[in-house]
C-alpha cells in the first residue's frame, strides 16, 4: 500500500508531516472562523429579521445600518478584503499571518454570507406562527428563541452547510497569501514547484471535506424536518 502511494503521490508522501499539518490548519481555520461567523450570523440575521419594517420589534435605523453593512462586505472581493484587513488583524490577533492571522478576515468574509443565509431561513417561518406566539403572550426574546430559531433549524442547518463549504474555499484563498493550510500547501508545492500530485491530492482532500459537510448537513436537516 505504502509503496503504491509512494509511486502515485511521491511528493505528498515525502512531505507527510507538512501535508497533515496543512489539513489540521485548514480544519482549525474553518472551525474557528466558522464558529465565530455562525454566532455572529445568527445574531445579525435575527436582528435584521426582527427589526424589519414589519418585524416584531421594527427599528428602521438598526435595520438599515446592518443591511447596508452586510451588503458592503458582501460586495468586496475576499482577496481585497484580506489585504484591507491586515492592520485590524494585527491589532486584534497580534499577527496577520498564519492560522491566527487568517481568522479575522475569514470571519469578515463569511459572516455577511451566513447572515443572508440566516435571513432567508428565518423568512421561511410562517408569520402566522409569530402571531400565534404573540397571542399567547410570549415576549420578543421567547419568540426569537422558541419560534424563529426553533422552527427554522432545518433551514439554518442548510445555510450553515452552504456557508461552511464556501468557507473552505475562502481558507484555501487565505492560504495562498500566507495563512497556511491546504491552500498554502497546494500553492507552495503544487503550483510553485510544479508538483502535480500535490495539487491533485489537495483537491481530493477538499472534495472529501466538502462532501462530508454536505452529507452531514443533509442528514441533520432531514432529521429536523417534520
Amino acid at each position, binding site marked *: 500500500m505504502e509503496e503504491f502511494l509512494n509511486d502515485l503521490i511521491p511528493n505528498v508522501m515525502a512531505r507527510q508531516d507538512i501535508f497533515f499539518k496543512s489539513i489540521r490548519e485548514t480544519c482549525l481555520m474553518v472551525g474557528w472562523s466558522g464558529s465565530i461567523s455562525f454566532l455572529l450570523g445568527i445574531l445579525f440575521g435575527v436582528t435584521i429579521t426582527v427589526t424589519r419594517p414589519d418585524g416584531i420589534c421594527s427599528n428602521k435605523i438598526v435595520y438599515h445600518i446592518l443591511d447596508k453593512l452586510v451588503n458592503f462586505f458582501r460586495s468586496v472581493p475576499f482577496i481585497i478584503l484580506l489585504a484591507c484587513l491586515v492592520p485590524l488583524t494585527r491589532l486584534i490577533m497580534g499577527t496577520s499571518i498564519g492560522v491566527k492571522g487568517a481568522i479575522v478576515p475569514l470571519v469578515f468574509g463569511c459572516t455577511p454570507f451566513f447572515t443572508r443565509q440566516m435571513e432567508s431561513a428565518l423568512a421561511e417561518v*410562517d408569520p*402566522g*406562527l409569530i*402571531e*400565534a406566539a*404573540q*397571542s*399567547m*403572550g*410570549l*415576549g420578543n426574546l421567547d419568540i426569537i428563541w*422558541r*419560534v424563529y430559531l*426553533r*422552527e427554522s*433549524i432545518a433551514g439554518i442547518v442548510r445555510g450553515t452547510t452552504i456557508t461552511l463549504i464556501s468557507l473552505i474555499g475562502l481558507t484555501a484563498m487565505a492560504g495562498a497569501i500566507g495563512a497556511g493550510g491546504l491552500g498554502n500547501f497546494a500553492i507552495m508545492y503544487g503550483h510553485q514547484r510544479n508538483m502535480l500530485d500535490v495539487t491533485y491530492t489537495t483537491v481530493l482532500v477538499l472534495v472529501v471535506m466538502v462532501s462530508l459537510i454536505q452529507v452531514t448537513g443533509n442528514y441533520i436537516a432531514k432529521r*429536523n424536518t*417534520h
Partner: protein
Amino acid sequence: MEAMIKFQHVRKEFNSDGKKFLAVDDVSFDIQKGEVFGIIGFSGAGKSTLVRCINLLERPTSGQVFINGTEITELPMSKLRQKRKKIGMIFQQFNLFASRTVWDNIAFPLKGSGLSKEEKAEKVEKLLKLVELDSKADAYPSNLSGGQKQRVAIARALASDPEILLSDESTSALDPKTTKSILNLLKKVNRELGITIVVITHEMQVIKEICDRVAVMKDGKVVEIGEVFDIFANPQEQITREFVEHTSNLSKIYELVEEKSDIVRVDQEQIVWRLRYLERNVSEALVSQLSRKFDLDINIIFGNIELIGENPIGGLVAIVRGTPEQIDGAIDYLHEKNVGVEVILDGRVSE
C-alpha cells in the same frame, strides 16, 4: 351581567403607501361573559382587525377596549402579555409549530407558568382527552388532518386557562363535516368550561350553529347586531338579508320563477307564496290549519326549517289553490299570526 369584552368607539386606521384606510370605523358594543358571539361580514369588512384589537395584536388608532373591566388599551407591555395568556386564539391556518409534536404544541404555552412537570403533563393529558386526540400525542402536525390540526390548536389555546377564545375563520379551511365537529367542540368548550367565545366567519351556517348573538360588519362598521334568531327572522339591513338568504334554498324559487320552470306554473286559482317564520312560537300545524280553515290545497315546493336554539326558523314556498277570497283570508290570518307572506306568483292576476 358584566361585559367580558367592551369596545368603545374603536377605530383602526392603516397607513399603506401614504394612503389612509379605515379598517374599523367607530365600533362600540359589548360581548357578555359566557356567550358565543359571532362576527360576520364579507372579506375586507374589518372582522379580523376588530377581533385583533381584543388582544391588541392590532392596536386601535383611537377608542378603548375593556376586558373584564380592565382597559387593556392602557396596559403596559408586561401586563398586556399576562392578559393575553387569558385570551386564547385560533386561526384559519391552524398555526401549529411544525417542529413540535402534538404534545409539545399543547404544552407550549405552559412554559414559565409555574406548573410542575407532573402538573403540566396532567394538563396536556386532560386537554388531549377534551379534543379527543389522546392517540396522536406524539404525532407531528404535518401528519394530521385539517380537523385534527384545529383540535390541537384549540387544546393549545385552552392550555393557559383562558377566559376568552377568539376564533378567526377557524373552520373556513375545513369540509362541512369537519366544520361541524369543530363547532361542536367549541360549543362544548363554551358550555363546559364557561369560556366566552368570539367567532369570526363569513358563513351564516357557522353563526346559526353555535352563536348566541351576532354582529354584522360592513366597511369597518357594525351595521346590525342582535340575537341570532332575531337576525335570521327579521334581518334589517340589505347585507344581513343576503347572508340569511344564502343559508337556505328558499331563494332558489326566484331563479325558478325567472326561468319559468314547470314546477312553478300556476293557473287562475293558484298562487305561489313564501312564508317566513318571524316569531319564536310558530305552531307546527300551521299548514294543516290553513288548509282546513280556508279550504286551500297547499303544495309545498321548498321547505327550510331549522332550529336556532330551541326555536324553529326558516320558511317554506308553496303553491296554493283556492278561491281569491279564501286565499286573501289566509293571508290576513298569517299576518295576524305574524308569519311573513310574500306572494311570488299570482295566477289570479297574471292572465
